[in-house]
């Protein structure tokens, strides 16, 4: 009996995440995911799109197209970073602990890009947030399967 209970509890207590794409049940927020350079002391729904209206500019820095917007009277400069090929941004939601399966995160919305905003500076390739995206290329190089051609091309003899 103990064995049976343990088996099921291991499965039930397992933390999981449901990743979903191309589904009517999931909202596409591409172009509407913004990283703001300030703490907003609030967490929850609000009418962002009525007040936060990014505009594109003619400016380009380090190959990044600069956008501008205003938040609480301050001018922000931002740039939209496309996610690497084969990746998506998943906005996950966890239900209240009272509901069943509290350790499961569900995909509620997805995005193909992220817009990063600076207050004082225009965006640059040296911004920490922009550089954080270098990890995807590094990780790919580190972990992708090595083919026979790769070995041949790196062979020094």
């Amino acid at each position, binding site marked *: 009996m103990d064995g049976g209970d343990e088996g099921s509890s291991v499965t039930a207590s*397992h933390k999981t995440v449901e990743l979903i*794409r191309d589904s009517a049940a999931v909202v596409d927020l591409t172009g509407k995911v913004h990283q703001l350079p300030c703490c907003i002391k609030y967490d929850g729904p609000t009418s962002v799109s009525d007040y936060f209206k990014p505009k594109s500019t003619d400016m380009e820095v380090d190959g990044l197209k600069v956008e501008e917007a205003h938040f609480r009277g301050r001018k922000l400069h931002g740039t939209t970073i496309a996610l690497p090929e084969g990746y998506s941004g998943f906005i996950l*939601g966890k239900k209240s602990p009272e509901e069943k399966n509290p350790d499961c995160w569900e995909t509620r919305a997805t995005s193909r890009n992220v817009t990063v905003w600076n207050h004082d500076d225009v965006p640059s390739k040296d911004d920490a947030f922009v550089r954080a995206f270098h990890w995807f290329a590094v990780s790919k190089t580190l972990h992708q399967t090595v083919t026979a051609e790769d070995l041949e091309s790196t062979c020094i003899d």
Partner: protein
Amino acid sequence: MAWWEGVDETRILIAPDPSTSGKHVGHFLSLRHPKTGNTTCYLYCDGVLQELHWFKQSYGSWFFGDYVCEVLGLPHTDGRLYTATPVDPVFILLPIFEEARMKVRQLKQTLPTLGNNYAARDEKDTRML
């Protein structure tokens, strides 16, 4: 229905696209980090082991459409940018095999007949690989 209905907490995770449309369940596994040996959270989805990283700045918040998410503030908020990227399982398994090999050597010296039992490891998450 708005996407945040019934949701208590939100997170943002950049992860590989699932191979097909529809629901793909990823399992969070606790495995030993190959360098430190500490228990580290990995994600196993679509038959691919992925490592989790996060990035945050001192001050930040998210707009997810018509939703605000604070990066770190209220106890239940966590707006760090999480990423999941594929990791070669060899990195995870090598230290475990290495340790098992040393054990076998010791066992064979003391109890030659028990040498074959080393394979029974107690790490249930490792078995899923």
